[in-house]
C-alpha cells in the first residue's frame, strides 16, 4: 500500500466524524489530526465515544458521516481495501482477545504468516524478538489460558506489533486487569512510546497520561472538549465539563 504521507502530514486525520447506533449518537463531529510519534491519550466518561472513535479508525465500526484518513488513505471510502489498512494499524483490546486454541508464539505469528505470507521461520524469528521485548519469550509455547491477565495483554501487544504497524490503538487495555498487573503493561507501552510509535490510548490511567502522553484529549458526549498538553490540562482544565470529570476522578486517586 502506498502512503501519501510526507514528514509533515498527519498519521491519522479525522474529518467531521459522526457515528450513530440507531437513535443513539456516539460521535457528534470529531475533527482530529494525529501526527507521527504522538502519544495521544484519550480520556472521558463512559459513553463519551472514546472507544467508538478508536474502532472507527480501524474500521471495526463504520462511520455514519465523515472521513478518516490513515497515512493519506481514506478508510471510510467503500473502495478501500480495509485489510491492507489494518496491516498498518495495530489494535489492542480491553479483553485481550488472544486466540485460546493457539500457543503464544502461534498467536503472534498467525497474521504475519497468513497475511504477509511470511515463512514460518521468518515469522517465528520476529515473534520471538517481540515476545522477548515484552518480557515473555519463555512463555512462547504456553497457551493463553496459562498466562496471567497482564501477561496475556503483553502478548496481545506483541501480536499487534508483529504486523509492523505504523500506528497502535489501545482501547482501555488495562481496565480488565488486577491492579498489580497494570504497571507491567503500562511499562511495555511506555517503551513503545519512547521508540517513537504513534499511539492512541483510551485509558483511565492518568499517571500514564501525564508521564508518557504527549497530548491529552478529553471527550464527552461524542465530542472533543479539550485537546492539549496533558500536564497543562490536568493543572488547569479550561472547560467546566473537564473540571467536573477530573474532580470526580482525582478525588479517589
Amino acid at each position, binding site marked *: 500500500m502506498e502512503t501519501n504521507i510526507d514528514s509533515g502530514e498527519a498519521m491519522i486525520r479525522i474529518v467531521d466524524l459522526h457515528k450513530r447506533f440507531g437513535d443513539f449518537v456516539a460521535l457528534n463531529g470529531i475533527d482530529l489530526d494525529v501526527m507521527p510519534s504522538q502519544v495521544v491519550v484519550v480520556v472521558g466518561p463512559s459513553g463519551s465515544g472514546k472507544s467508538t472513535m478508536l474502532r472507527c479508525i480501524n474500521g*471495526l465500526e463504520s462511520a455514519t458521516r465523515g472521513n478518516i484518513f490513515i497515512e493519506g488513505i481514506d478508510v471510510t471510502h467503500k473502495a478501500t481495501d480495509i*485489510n491492507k489498512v489494518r*496491516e498498518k*494499524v495495530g489494535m489492542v*483490546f480491553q479483553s485481550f482477545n488472544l*486466540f485460546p486454541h493457539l500457543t503464544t508464539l502461534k498467536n503472534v505469528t498467525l497474521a504475519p504468516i*497468513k497475511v504477509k505470507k511470511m515463512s514460518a521461520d521468518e515469522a517465528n524469528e520476529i515473534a520471538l524478538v517481540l515476545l522477548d521485548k515484552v518480557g515473555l519469550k519463555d512463555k512462547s509455547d504456553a497457551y493463553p489460558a496459562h498466562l496471567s491477565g497482564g501477561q496475556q495483554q503483553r502478548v496481545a501487544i506483541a501480536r499487534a506489533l508483529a*504486523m509492523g504497524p505504523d500506528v497502535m490503538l489501545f482501547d482501555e487495555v488495562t481496565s480488565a486487569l488486577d491492579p498489580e498487573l497494570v504497571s507491567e503493561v503500562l511499562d511495555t507501552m511506555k517503551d513503545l512510546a519512547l521508540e517513537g510509535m504513534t499511539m492512541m490510548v483510551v485509558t483511565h490511567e492518568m499517571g500514564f497520561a501525564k508521564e508518557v502522553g504527549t497530548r491529552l484529549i478529553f471527550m464527552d458526549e461524542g465530542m472533543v472538549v479539550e485537546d492539549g498538553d496533558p500536564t497543562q490540562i490536568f493543572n488547569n482544565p479550561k472547560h467546566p465539563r473537564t473540571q467536573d470529570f477530573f474532580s470526580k476522578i482525582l478525588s479517589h486517586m
Partner: protein
Amino acid sequence: MANEIELNAEGEMLSDFEKPNVSGWAKASLIMGILGLTALPFVGAVLAIVFARIAKRRILYDDALAGDGLATAGQTLGIIGLLLVALAVFILLMQERLRAFIADFFNWDTIKFWWPKVGRAFLTTLKLAVVAEFFILIFGLFVALLRLSKLKIFRFIAVVYIDVIRGLPLILQIFIIYFGLSYLGLNLSRFAAGAVALTVCYAAYEAEIFRAGIESIHKGQMEASRSLGMTYLQSMRYVVLPQAVRRVIPPLSNEFIMLTKDTALVAFIGLSEAFLVGKEGMGRDANVTPLVGVALFFLLVTIPAMRVVQYLEVRLSKGD
C-alpha cells in the same frame, strides 16, 4: 465403644466375626443368608432377613453390641435369595408364555438363517451413514456460513432452505428426491438418492448447530483477527471455526447417531439395508426374530456411540 479397633492376644485386628459382644442374631443372619442361597432356599432367605432385623434393632439400643455389618450382609444375601426364588417361580408359572416369547423374538432357526443376512445388510446401513455424514458436515457448514453472511440474499436463501427442510418429514424428502429426480430423467441409484436425501435433510439441522457454535465464539476473536489484517474467511478458518467446531462436536455426534437410525427409512424406496432385510425375514419366517436382530445390530453401534459422546462432552468442556 463398638467402634474401637479391637486387637486379639497377638495384636492383630479382630474381624467383626471374632470381636467379643458380636450379636448372635447378626451371625445367625449371615449364616442363614448363605444357606438361603444354597441348601435351604426361601426358608433360609426369610430367616436371614428376620434375624438381621432383630440383630439391627438390638445393636442400635445396646452400645456394647457389635455386628451391624454382618447383619447387613446377611440381610442382603437374604434379599438376593428371595429374588432368585421369585424368579424361579415366575419362570415356572410362565413357562408357556416364555416359550412363545422366545419362539417369536429369539427363534433359534430364524437367528441362524436371518441374523447373518441382516448383519451383512447392516454394512450397507453403516456405509450409507458414513457417506451421508461426510457430505452433511461440508454442506451444513456451508449453509451456516450463508446464514451468517452480510449479504441479505444469501441469508434469505439459507433461511428458506433451513425452514422448509426442517418443516418436512424425512421420509417425505426421501420419496420426493428419489421419485422426483427419476421423473426429471436423473436416475440415481437407491443408495445415492438415499444419501442425497439424508444430506439435504440433516445439513439443515447441522447448519443451525454450526451457526450456534460460531455465534457462541466471543466476537472479540473475529475483531482481533480482522484488526491484524486477516480477511473474514481467514479469520473464520484459522480463528473462529477451530474454536466453534470443538464446541459443537457433542451435538454433531448426537446428530450422527440419529442419522444412523434414520438410514432405515431408505428401506421404503427399496434399498437393501438392515431394516428391509429384517422385514423380509419377518415375512418369510412369520416371527419377529429378524427385526430383533436388526435392533441388536443398531444398539451395538448406537449405545457405544452415546458413551463416546458423553466422554467427549466431558473432555471438551474441560478445555473451555
